[in-house]
């Protein structure tokens, strides 16, 4: 696990993650922050529990970075994902992509989060006042 790809129990610090990709020749930085929402389907979320199959999650995140750099060869990218117990409003994932120009930064950052949501083995359990559910588990 490098600095750029990181799974942690700690609060994600956006400024620090941005500084990992910022570079004098890269003028556009697109950051995505996925935060814990309060309500899904009308129920109050008390907290969320994120669980990772950590070595594979790191491997998948590394594959995402490699695929991203195949398409945007001058990009720098960092993906940090939080696990453990999160409360509403906190960031679960922060992705930062720096490229020379902004259009590539947006496209590459969107590619990273879209792919992460499909392939990275991290699971989210929503805990409500009256129960809990693994998100997306059932049709």
């Amino acid at each position, binding site marked *: 696990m490098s600095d750029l790809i990181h799974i942690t129990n700690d609060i994600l610090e956006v400024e620090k993650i941005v500084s990992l990709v910022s570079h004098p020749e890269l003028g556009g930085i697109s950051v995505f922050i996925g935060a814990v929402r309060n309500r*899904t389907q009308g129920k109050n979320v008390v907290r969320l529990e994120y669980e990772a199959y950590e070595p594979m999650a790191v491997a998948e995140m590394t594959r995402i970075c490699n695929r991203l750099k195949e398409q945007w060869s001058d990009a720098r990218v960092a993906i940090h994902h939080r696990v453990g117990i999160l409360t509403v409003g906190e960031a679960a994932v922060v992705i930062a992509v720096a490229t020379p120009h902004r259009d590539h930064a947006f496209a590459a950052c969107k590619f990273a989060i879209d792919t992460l*949501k*499909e392939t990275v*083995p991290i*699971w989210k359990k929503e805990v409500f006042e009256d129960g809990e559910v693994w998100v*997306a588990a059932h049709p």
Partner: protein
Amino acid sequence: MKIQVLLFGIARDIVGSSQLSLSHDGALDVKTFKQILKDKYPKMSHLSYFKVAVNQEFAKDDRVLNEGDEIALIPPVSGGSF
């Protein structure tokens, strides 16, 4: 042949444990392995899907499992809440 299986998220809740040992006579591919699990744990069939990872990579149905492989069940990942 005996394999160890890592379980996460709802798959762990269904099985009631974070690891599972499985014995099988002869060659075992991913497709057959998934069917064995569904037979043993019918609730697995109610999931949107589940995938199998071998040595930390997603494996196709025809992949043959070997003793010593790191095998994991991958239920649906976190989905679209943001």
